[in-house]
């Protein structure tokens, strides 16, 4: 899938695990000897925490090897450093940059100016996507851990913001070239969600906004899926709170969970209590499974490829990231996916 794409933007509502998915995607895209760059732009150092390394400086460095000899590099894009780099690169402003910093101009441009900050952040990513060495691009793919769904369309749509402010001039030119890349077949935006109402709603809204902004929506990654434990018929009964206690008790007795102490009556009471508690937990589970099934239908109705990732027992660690990368690759989200 998306064999053309060189820039993979990953977004999702807070709490859906977009950084985890971005990291797993960078690993997946690096399989088979390729090289990817994983970028973050929100000063959160989420990548460093995920890979369990020291906070990333404003420097690209290798942070992981992928299956089959590939490499994942990482970069935490910091707007201030990006601006000074940009000024130096395009205007050769060594000392003048310092003067600007003293006057608060750098703060202005990087922390509060609308659009400019996003131009700088996306500009650095743009530069990494296009950087070449020895006649070929340095990175086979760049994965951007982007701002959350609520803000992503505005973030990627920097041109509109800047166009309001800068009708002509170098910033405008830079914004225009970034938009050309973002709107080309080289860029796809993947949406990460979990099967709850609010994140799915936001995913639907973001998909519509992105399309309206002329951007390409890639896959919808459904994260932290948990398989239903109950068979369909039991699920329906459990959701209604109509599981038969006697049936549950029968199973508990069969594996000796009645215990040995006490009278027959107290053992029966204990089993009944346990069965009731298990049925209550079963009901919560069933209600959630039903809700998730409905939400999955909404996600599928978006008409984009849907990738499903399991919840990892015990949270995400490095091993878990590789496991998720394998699953993404199996579902076609890798550098050499099925045609």
């Amino acid at each position, binding site marked *: 899938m998306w064999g053309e794409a060189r820039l993979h933007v990953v977004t999702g509502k807070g*709490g859906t695990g977009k950084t985890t998915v971005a990291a797993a995607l960078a690993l997946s895209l690096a399989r088979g000897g390729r090289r990817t760059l994983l970028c973050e732009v929100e000063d959160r150092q989420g990548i460093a925490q995920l890979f369990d390394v020291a906070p990333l400086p404003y420097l690209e460095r290798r942070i992981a090897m992928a299956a089959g000899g590939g490499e994942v590099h990482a970069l935490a894009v910091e707007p201030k450093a990006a601006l000074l780099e940009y000024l130096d690169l395009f205007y050769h402003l060594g000392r003048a940059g310092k003067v600007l910093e003293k006057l*608060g101009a750098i703060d*202005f441009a990087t922390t509060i100016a609308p659009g400019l900050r996003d131009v700088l952040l996306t500009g650095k990513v743009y530069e990494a996507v296009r950087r070449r060495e020895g006649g070929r691009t340095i990175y086979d793919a760049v994965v951007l851990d982007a701002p*959350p769904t*609520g803000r992503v369309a505005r973030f990627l749509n920097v041109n509109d913001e800047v166009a309001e402010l800068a009708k002509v001039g170098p910033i405008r030119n830079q914004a225009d070239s970034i938009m050309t890349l973002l709107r080309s077949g080289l860029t796809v935006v993947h949406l990460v969600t979990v099967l709850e109402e609010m994140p799915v709603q936001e995913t639907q809204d973001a998909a519509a906004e992105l399309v309206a902004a002329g951007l390409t929506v890639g896959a919808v990654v459904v994260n932290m899926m948990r398989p239903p434990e109950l*068979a369909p018929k*039991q699920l329906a009964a459990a959701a209604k709170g109509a*599981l038969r206690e006697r049936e549950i008790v029968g*199973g508990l007795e069969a594996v000796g969970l009645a215990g040995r102490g006490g009278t027959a009556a107290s053992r029966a009471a204990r089993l009944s209590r346990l069965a009731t508690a298990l049925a209550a937990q079963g009901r919560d589970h069933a209600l959630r499974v039903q809700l998730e099934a409905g939400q999955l239908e909404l996600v599928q109705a978006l008409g984009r490829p849907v990738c499903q990732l399991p919840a990892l027992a015990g949270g995400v660690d490095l091993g878990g990231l590789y496991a998720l990368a394998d699953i993404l690759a199996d579902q076609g989200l890798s550098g050499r996916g099925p045609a």
Partner: protein
Amino acid sequence: MSDRPVFDVDALLDDRSTRVVVCCGAGGVGKTTTAAALGLRAAERGRRVVVLTIDPARRLAQSMGLGELDNTPRPVTDIDRTSGGSLEAMMLDMKRTFDEVIELHAAPDKAALIFANPFYQALSSSFAGTQEYMAMEKLGQLRALADADASNPRWDLIVVDTPPSRSALDFLDAPQRLGSFLDGRLIRLLSAPARAGGRAYFKVVSAAVGTAAGVMTKVLGAQVLRDVQTFVSALDTVFGGFRERAEATYRLLQRPGTAFVVVASPEPDALREASFFVERLAAESMPLAGLVVNRVHQVHAEELSADRAAAAAEDLDELGEHALTAALLRIHVDRVRRRERELALSARFTGAHRSVPVVDVSARPTDVHDLLSLREIGADLAKG
């Protein structure tokens, strides 16, 4: 876990000297829902409440009967009024609030000039920090309205939700950052040519300014600079220091009667944010009422350990019978393990912040759709 102080939500809400409750925390932890549930509970316990939400999910807004975006408080009907309380709710419209500030302070012709400036349009709709700034502004307005008639106030409690920022700290930092920018040296220098000019310090740094202005013209383009300059000088004549305004709202948050409620989910990121926020509040002498750990999973069958249940489920699988019981046991194993993980994360927080009162709110199998579920969350918050 047992020795951690318990966050007594009802005591906070019932205390008439509590005038402002600010809910803060990382994005996606259920901040807005918590704010709404606190507001409803306070109202049904006799307070006159207004809830200021920032960006509520549609369903949550509908559950309070607020179908459409509106920048003024509207009464939430259908609440239980037997205790004499009332509930109003509103959603912040950042641009509208900014426009109102301008309209309030500027002569109509000046206001029109500001509204037409492209820099103002960008500032009022998308400046990073504007949402936080305007949330503070709105809070100040609501507070002033509440204080206007002390004998019969429209509200005696304001519950504020905070904007969904990338970090919980943005809410505290952004207004001051924006204020100091609008009030800062850069802006003075930028707007200097548009004013009388010739200030002493201006001469001293004029060489640097010359370089800076040259560079900025080169980078930003002359037109952008001109727009910024006209905007700033227009704004400056309209009303005094932005920074002062930001500082005044900041002080409001330090006043007795304000209480911060930090909201987190039992996840590493959310609890880390909560820790940062708790430390920051202490550093700024802002009163922290407690931590709400949202969406905690409850275990009903406490007496059965995960290991025992897992072994029993395996035994049943081997027997090839009692599939239902085996499935319920596996659900139990999953719950217990999840709960253990949540407890460990929570314990890490409590270990570092022993004096912070905490309350857990149970995860719900479905989302909030109506006042009834908001009321249940409120009861859960107050169970102590």
